[in-house]
């Protein structure tokens, strides 16, 4: 380092002097530096969020007379949405299925198992298998969707292989659309949880586990009594983040099944798209978006609370 460091006491005195003399100058600098962020985020995130709420109270459509001259219709969109037979409950249940099957089991649990097993693998296995898993995550989502679409299509490689293994021949994307997309999403997303867990596992001191081993704890007890409790913070963060990610997921399902057959895989995000852009009911689609926003906001607040409790939001100095 070429810059000399100061004696701590002199530094403290200097800091005090600077903060008194330069308080307003400092504020000006702070505002100038954050201004671009504030402008971009307000214009392209803040405004659309407010506009989502406003639009959902109108009858705006993409085409037709109400495209140009929409009017305020109060909560009519919500009434229609929450009425039975609107498809909302069906979509929420499918989103929950997708969340549990592909995110909680396919990514979090499976990611933990992988991270746990990897610790006992020789370096070469770790490096090769770890890279394959991470590459599955890095590939653009639409490519992941296409790979699984072709594998499971009529005549696709995996469809044929499963048939060869004695499972009745079927077009998986039509006979089991939710299983198909959940499989694809687990394959694609497991790397995130795996990376998070393997970083946390390597932070656990090995002597702690060895001590438990000496005391006679078998591997199941070491896992359930020491490792999992020590990882509880990471597990919580992982669950919140993959919940948000899965809720926000549209591409994989939309590309692989289009929400079909019928509405058999129309999760919330696809439901919103179909109403707003395929049925041209822009405002009605926005009401579904508000439901998504509210669920997302609840989990985002939970995330902030968890991070605050961990002290992760305090500036380190």
């Amino acid at each position, binding site marked *: 380092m070429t*810059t*000399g*460091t100061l004696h701590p006491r002199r*530094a403290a005195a*200097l*800091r005090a002097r600077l903060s008194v003399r330069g308080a307003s100058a400092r504020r000006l600098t702070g505002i100038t530096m*954050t201004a*671009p*962020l*504030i402008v*971009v985020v307000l*214009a392209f*995130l803040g*405004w*659309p*969020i407010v*506009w989502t709420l406003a*639009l959902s109270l109108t009858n705006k459509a993409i085409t037709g007379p109400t495209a140009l001259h929409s009017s305020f219709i109060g909560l009519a969109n919500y009434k229609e949405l929450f009425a039975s037979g609107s498809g909302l409950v069906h979509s929420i249940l499918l989103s929950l299925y997708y969340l549990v099957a592909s995110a909680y089991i396919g990514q979090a649990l499976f990611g933990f198992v992988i991270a746990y*097993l*990897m610790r006992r693998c020789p370096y070469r*296995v*770790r490096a090769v*298998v770890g890279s*394959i*898993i*991470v*590459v*599955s995550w890095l*590939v*653009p989502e*639409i490519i*992941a*969707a*296409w*790979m699984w*679409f*072709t*594998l499971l299509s009529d*005549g*696709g490689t*995996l469809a044929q292989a499963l048939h060869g293994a004695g499972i009745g021949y079927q077009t998986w994307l039509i006979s089991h659309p939710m299983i198909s997309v959940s499989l694809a999403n687990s394959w694609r997303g497991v790397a995130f949880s795996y990376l*998070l867990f393997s970083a*946390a596992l390597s932070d656990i001191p090995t002597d702690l586990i060895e001590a438990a081993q000496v005391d006679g704890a078998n591997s199941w007890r070491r896992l359930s009594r020491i490792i999992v409790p020590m990882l509880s913070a*990471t597990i919580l*963060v992982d669950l919140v983040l993959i919940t948000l990610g899965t809720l*926000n997921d*549209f591409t994989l399902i939309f590309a*692989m099944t289009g929400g079909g057959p019928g509405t058999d895989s129309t999760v919330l995000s696809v439901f*919103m798209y179909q109403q707003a852009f395929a049925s041209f009911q*822009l405002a009605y689609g926005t009401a579904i*978006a508000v439901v*998504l926003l509210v669920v*997302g906001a609840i989990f*985002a*607040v939970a995330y*902030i609370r968890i*991070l605050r409790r961990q002290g992760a*939001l305090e*500036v380190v*100095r």
Partner: protein
Amino acid sequence: MGLVRRNLPAGVMSLIGAAFLLPFVWLVVVAFQAHGTLQLSGGGSFTISHFTSVLHGGLLSALGNSLYLAGGTTVATTVIGVLAAYPLSRFRSRTQRYFIYVLVFLTGLPVIAIIIPTYDFFVAAGFINSKFWTVWFMTATALPFGTWIACSFIDAVPRELEEASWIDGMSRWGSLLRIVVPLIVPGMCVVAVYTFVNAWGEFFIPFILLQSQNAPASVTMYSYFGQYDINYSEVAAFALLYSLPPVVLYLIVTRWVGQGFALTGAIKG
């Protein structure tokens, strides 16, 4: 018995690894075959003609559009994010703390939920089908997380280094550019690569906001779904070329920044 037990994890992981590799096998094999089909088959003549035809044909412009969107988003996010992260990391105040909360909150908000008003706004403002304005929307979605990680990297730079420069009369801007930025280059690369990988793979935003000649590779790729008379080999070659940049960038950055690629580290806090 002991030997089996000891090698069991490695055996299981090798199987899992092989299963994860499976989807890639079809893609890679078919891309190099003259006439690949859905059904994986050996044989067929080996050729790289599909790659050259992608690079000479109209698909190149789709990749160019992806580069425009991802490159623009990355540059804007990194510059704006680091700039804002500096006062957020250095100036202690209540405002600063709430600012961080808002950023984390926005990180978690589902972007797909605000696409409809954004579409509405883009149509009204005449921004629809404009790559330039799409970049700004994508930047806004990438900024909360990018700024937050940049913050944690600036936190790690000791204040004492800057204080010495202030005595010599350097301004805040000076110490940010001359002292902090050079020290957080690896952190900036993490922000940049993370943003680039996400923006490069983004499908939904350009699918809604951009059309035909402005569509990136992800949207072009979508047009191949459910078409059964396509040349699978050529699409596979295109898919491979499109998948390459994120993988290469990730490998370079992990090599350079080190094994603890701070993506997950930053999230952990």
